[in-house]
Each structure stands twice: as C-alpha cells, then as structure tokens.
C-alpha cells in the first residue's frame, strides 16, 4: 500500500490533478496568509515584551507561553462559538469560509511568534544594551538593530509558525467545515479520505504534506548552518 501511495502521490503531482492542486493551493494560501497576519501582530508584541519592563509583563509572557500548547480543537470550538450565527461575531458571516480558517490558525500561531520572538530579542538586547547605552543610540535604532541581528533566529520562528499552520487540522475542520472546492485543505482531506477508507489517497496526500514539511526544514537548517558559520546566531 505504501508503494501504491507513493505512485499515487507522484501521479497527483505529475498529472497536474486539478482537484489536488486546488486543495494544495488553498492550504498554502490559508497558511501563508494566517502566518503573514500573525507575524504582523506577533513580531511587534514579542519585541515590545522583550525590551520593555512593565507591570504584569511576566504574566503576559506566561500566558503567551502557555498558549503555545493550545489544543487546536478547543481553539476551533471557541472560534466557532464566536463566529457562528448566534455568536458575538456572527454578523461577519465568515463561518465555513477560508477567513474563519485563517482566524483559527492565527490564534494558534500568534503565541508561538510572540513567545519565541520575545525570547530571542530579550537575549540579544541583553547582550547589546550596554553598547547601545554607551554609544547613546536611540531606542528606535537599537530596536531595529536587535531585530536585524536576530533575523536568522526570527526566520526560524516564522517557519515554525508555518509548520504549525500547514499541519493544522482540528481547528480548520471545525470552523471551515471541510467543504469541497471551498474550505477543503490538505489535512482535512486526509482526515476525510481516511474515514472513507481511501487510505492510499490519504497516504499520498500525507506524503506530499511531509515533503512540504521537509522542504521547510531543509531551508531552516541551511539558513541556520549558514548563520552559525558566520556566528550570526
């Protein structure tokens, strides 16, 4: 069956299967968009938490750290309750749309981005702060310098966020509904095909998903090795 699955996976890619590419494209679109929006929100929050000392900062960090382990189905359920017709945001009408899936994924990714960014920037800021103070560098310039010098580590965080997004199934199936040609993504298709007993197709999709994860990790390791060789991390 494994061999059959590999053949099927190749077939799907080589024959440019329309349905498959639609699913793949939607998976990438939802994951990339949720990652982009999560970075827009998460990177500034993480950086702020790293460099500013304020009352309750540790509590905020603990909350974000704890949220890294949020069970996706619980997130899916909460988002579902919020955006369902009778929920407070029901008027948005986004339930069972890719937008709902993006919202759910953002809730899962933002804590990862915030916590890891805060950790990285805090470390680099600790290392540089005396130098910056001694050179009378403005806090704005110091902040940019910290972010720039942490670029490799932050890229790792972003890719970790992408990994979480692309492999997510529990939350997106609840809020997306796994509707064919609308909200069906790789992971939800795998779940569906498995339940239907179409194991070879499920496995074929799984292989492609694994390949994506492998490529991401390859990029990550290459970048890290390059940065390490230059002692930039």
């Amino acid at each position, binding site marked *: 069956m494994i061999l059959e699955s590999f053949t099927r996976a190749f077939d799907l890619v080589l024959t440019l299967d329309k349905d498959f590419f639609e699913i793949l494209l939607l998976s990438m679109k939802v994951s990339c968009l949720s990652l982009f929006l999560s970075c827009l929100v998460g990177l500034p929050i993480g950086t702020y938490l790293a460099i500013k000392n304020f009352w309750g900062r540790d509590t905020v960090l603990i909350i974000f750290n704890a949220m890294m382990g949020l069970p996706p189905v619980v997130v899916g359920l909460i988002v579902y309750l919020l955006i369902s017709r009778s929920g407070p945001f029901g008027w948005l009408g986004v339930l069972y749309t890719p937008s709902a899936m993006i919202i759910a994924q953002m809730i899962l990714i933002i804590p990862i981005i915030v916590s890891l960014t805060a950790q990285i920037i805090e470390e680099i800021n600790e290392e540089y702060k*005396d130098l910056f103070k*001694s050179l009378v560098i403005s806090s704005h310039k110091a902040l940019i*310098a910290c972010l720039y010098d942490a670029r490799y580590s932050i890229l790792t965080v972003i890719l970790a966020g992408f990994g979480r997004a692309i492999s997510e199934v529990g939350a997106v199936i609840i809020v997306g509904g796994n509707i064919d040609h609308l909200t069906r993504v790789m992971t939800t298709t795998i779940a569906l095909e498995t339940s239907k007993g179409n194991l070879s197709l499920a496995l074929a999709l799984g292989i492609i998903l694994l390949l994506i994860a492998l490529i991401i990790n390859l990029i990550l390791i290459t970048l890290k090795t390059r940065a390490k060789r230059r*002692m930039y991390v």
Partner: protein
Amino acid sequence: MFDKQKKTKLLTPIVVSNLSILLGEIKILDKINCKIHNESIIAILGPNGAGKSMFLKSINGLIGVESRKIYFNSREINDHIRKDMALVFQKPTLLRRTVLENMQFVLEKKNKISNLQITNLLKRVGLDIYKYKPARLLSGGEQQRLSLARALLINPSLLLLDEPTANLDPYSLNLIEEIILDENKKGKTIILTTHDMGQAKRLAKEILFFNKGKLLEQTKAINFFKKPKTKEAQSYINGKILL
C-alpha cells in the same frame, strides 16, 4: 555652546564629586572625589572587585548611581555630553555583522568621507583585510582592536578603556598601546583600567588607585611606582593580597 566649551580646553575637564554606587547593601563605590587632568592618560589600578570598571561605567553613564556629580568640561554629564566619550569594554560587544557593518553602525550618516575614515581606522588597527569578515569570527585580539577602532570612529574627547589588553598577544598589545599614545598626543584624554603594571608605567601619566570601592590614591605615575603613599598600594604593587 558645547563645541565652544570643547575648544576652550579646561585643565580639569572631568570632575567627579561624591560618587557612590550601591548594589543592594554593598557599596561598590564610596564617595569618590577626583579631578582628571586634560589630555592625560590615567590608569586605574586596584585589585579585582575594587570598583575600577564600575568607576569607568559610571563616568560613561552606564550605571545608575546612588549619588553622583560628574562634570565633563564644567557640565554635568548628560546624553549630549556622553556622545563625546567612548567606552571600550573588557569583553568586546560586537554586532552579529561584518567588520565593516560594525563600524558603520556608529555613524549617523554613511558617505564617502565616512567610508574613507573607516578604511583608515581599520588599516590602523590592522583589520582592513577583514572588512567583509563576520566580526565574531575574529580572534580575541582582533575583536578588541575592532572595538577600539569603532570607538575612535566617533572621535571622542574622552576615551574610556576597560582592560583593553587583557589576555591579548604581544602584537595586539603593542598596537593598542601605540594607538593609545597616539590618540593622547592628538589631544584625547584617556582613562584605562589595567592589571598590567608594565603597561601602567609605559602609558600612564597619572594613577588612580582603588581598593574596596574607595579611591585611596591619585598621584603621578612616577611617584606611585616609586613611593606609594598607602600600605594597600604598596602591597598591591608587591603582589600581596589586600585584606
């Protein structure tokens, strides 16, 4: 106004009055009073934990102090004045960038003149061939030389050096000492901490001797090594433990 003051060189540009630093209940520096003479090289001597580095950092405004009045060219130290001084740390703090980018970071503007300045300074410290090398891949001595070059790029009136040659090879040591003497000749006031008596003898015109957070002696270098006034200084010079 500041530039005008800079031009009218004062005999005692740095006046430290009643400087104390408390860490918890421990007094790191205890009521330090001294005057640093213009265009001088001052070596701060004293055993480990005497407060030498703290004294340098407090002049540079890096450390919050219990009570402090430090004047530079008759003005109490503030951020504007601090821009006219540079501190080289004992352990060089270099950005995760190339040698050139580390130099460029301290400049407000990048232009042809500044690039020429950078090249000249890197040549001076023997690092021009490593311009594009990641700074953290340099050896300890090279990193310290880069740190010094970066400080000189600001062209400060006051140069503070915290054990600039600790653990360095003879080449780096000689090069840094030559630069210190050269910069002093150009009119810079230099304060350095060191444990190297030979270096203090070679470079310093004046010695500040610290022990247990107190300034015990401020005297000319020749007098200090010939006839130290305090028992503690005598013991320190003779390599005895100070109790």
